[in-house]
């Protein structure tokens, strides 16, 4: 009985370590200054004992509308570090919405994040407030940019996320502004991103 419990505990420990490496370690190692000691401490200490999240950053590729308005440009930006994939996803989307002049985000600035959750299959659901739709320019190309800014920002920076579905006010939405089909999770598409970035 004891041996069995020990075995289960062992397996759990291995799974936990694996999970930490996959979801916390990897994003951090691909971060800006992958200091070995910081990465090691992230693995060794529970999240609660970590230094305040605000102090720690990761470098992520964020997407902005090019000067000519014809494509998205990937840009390296610092984003607050978060301990879990959903929290990190939320931090990345928040950074995408934040004003960062002179860069222009395709996401309306009034948009609020209601929730971000990630399924076991690697589908992220990004629940946004209605402003993402009501404050949108309504252009089809802009709508493509808005959708793929979010989809690409998550799939490019977080390997654990393979597809992204956008929800509006907690509900599945047909489209943001009448064009792009949002009924299914969308996979990364760099078709709209300038080639010299990424």
């Amino acid at each position, binding site marked *: 009985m004891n041996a069995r419990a020990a075995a289960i505990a062992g397996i759990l420990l291995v799974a936990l370590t694996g999970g930490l490496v996959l979801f916390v370690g990897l994003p951090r190692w691909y971060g800006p200054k992958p200091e070995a000691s910081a990465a090691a401490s992230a693995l060794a200490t529970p999240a609660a004992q970590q230094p305040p999240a605000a102090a720690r950053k990761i470098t992520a590729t964020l997407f902005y509308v090019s000067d000519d*308005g014809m494509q998205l440009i990937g840009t390296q930006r610092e984003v607050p570090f978060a301990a879990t994939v959903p929290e990190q996803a939320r931090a990345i989307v928040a950074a995408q919405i934040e004003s960062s002049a002179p860069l*222009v985000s395709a996401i309306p600035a009034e948009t609020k994040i209601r929730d971000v959750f990630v399924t076991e299959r690697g589908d992220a659901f990004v629940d946004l407030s209605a402003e993402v739709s009501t404050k949108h*320019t309504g252009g*089809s190309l802009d709508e*493509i940019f808005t959708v793929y800014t979010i989809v690409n920002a998550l799939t490019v920076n977080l390997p654990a996320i393979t597809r992204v579905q956008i929800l509006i006010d907690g509900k599945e939405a047909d489209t943001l502004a009448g*064009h*792009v*089909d949002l009924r*299914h999770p969308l*996979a990364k598409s760099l078709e709209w991103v300038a080639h010299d970035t990424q």
Partner: protein
Amino acid sequence: MTKFMRSLLTLHARVLSAAVAAAAIVLTIATFAAQAPAPAAPYTVFSRSARQPLAVRTVSGQEMFALDDLARLFTLTVREDALAGGLTISVNNQTIVLTAQQPLASVAGRMISLPAAPVYESHTWLVPVDFVSRALAPILGSPLELRKPSRLILVGDVRMPRIAGRVEVLGNLTRVTLDVAPATPHAVTQEGARLLVRFEADALDAQLPTPPAPPTGADVVQAIRPGDQPTTIVFDLGPRFGSFRTADQPAPGGVTRIVIDLVAQTDTAATPGTAAPALPPATETPPLLELPPPGGLRTIVIDPGHGGDENGARGEKGTLEKNVTLSVARRLKGTLEGRLGVRVLLTRDGDQTLPLDQRAAVANNNKADLFISLHANASVRSGLSGAEVFYLNLAEYGDEAQRVAHGGAESLPVLGGGSREIEVILWEMAQARYIDQSAAFARTVEAALRERIPMSRRAIQQAPFRVLGGANMPAILVEMGFLTNPQQEQQLVTDEYQSGIVQALVDGIVRFRGASAAGTR
């Protein structure tokens, strides 16, 4: 290197000649079988690489195959259990158990019924022909199809469409209808006094009609027969043949209906007065009007984007996308109806909110041949200008849509054994199988627009647009210009710019219709 290439070429030539020979023989057999369906005529087992006859014996009115023959053809292992009076047939690590005196079989543990029990006669076991479709097909691991009417067994991935034809005489017009299942690419061409229908297939399984006796039809078409090639059908044209036209109509169940209209010469000087009373006067040939015009263009649905609560894009001076799109759509309808004589429907003809699904549904329910969604664009960059043409990007809909787009029919097991080829298509992916046509339509319209209005740098694009996904016909979305560009906002409301767009769209439709009509001939 050269040796390798030479051996490759030899192999290629050998395969080709074998395939041609096999196909030629099969057509002969298939035609023979169709003409003389003798009860004990053998079946033909047809695969890509070979063709073999399979003897049939009739026992108490039931057509049966010898199990030994089947074992040889399909490498089955047959074991007889003398004690239990049963037979065990193994293939692919799966077994079929047959019991003497019982019209039943257990196929991989599942019971199926047979029209008769197996019979032991002249030192061999005989099983009903349905054994092939009901017992063998489900476990063989490769496609296997029993076609009783044409006495064929198709093994593996063989393209042999079934073709059923009929001839109707409608006054001056002789209409030949060929139902082709499953839908198969084909071309209709005239070569001298013959009309050739060529199919992209390995062989044909055709039941061809006989043209009616003179004087009603045979003076236009004398015979409809298999061609010299195994994948062609030949019409021998008569002396009064004038012209022909052809149109494809998709019918339910993945069938394509090819309608070929043979028009007689109207004023034949050769038969003045004599044949004239027998023929109805030319004015009594209304079917001509009901025919699809060349290219099969009868109904076009125009979708003015947005509407009602959904304003769409908005210009700095307050111009709303929903109003621009409706205005252009109304003009386009008038011009198309006037110039092309086609039926044109608008998804909305007022300022109402209309869900995206309903827009495609209007086109689907009215069996539209083309769907055009009109939009005006907006950008966070006000400098952006120019028109763009979009068609659907299938990549976002996953592998299933890709399969549908490339003509995938699915072989599904049916109750009682065997399998049926059906085209499974999710309604929201209806556009998938028109994607190539939509791409061609988009290119044609883009070229026509470019002649009249400024285009964007990304003039032709693919995107996962919701309104296009459910359209069951070639479908495009046209962004006519950017309302967020002050200069374009002014242009978009002028008569001149709007009629430029309308003219360009009409030109694009006419050219696309011409190209499609040329493609089917």
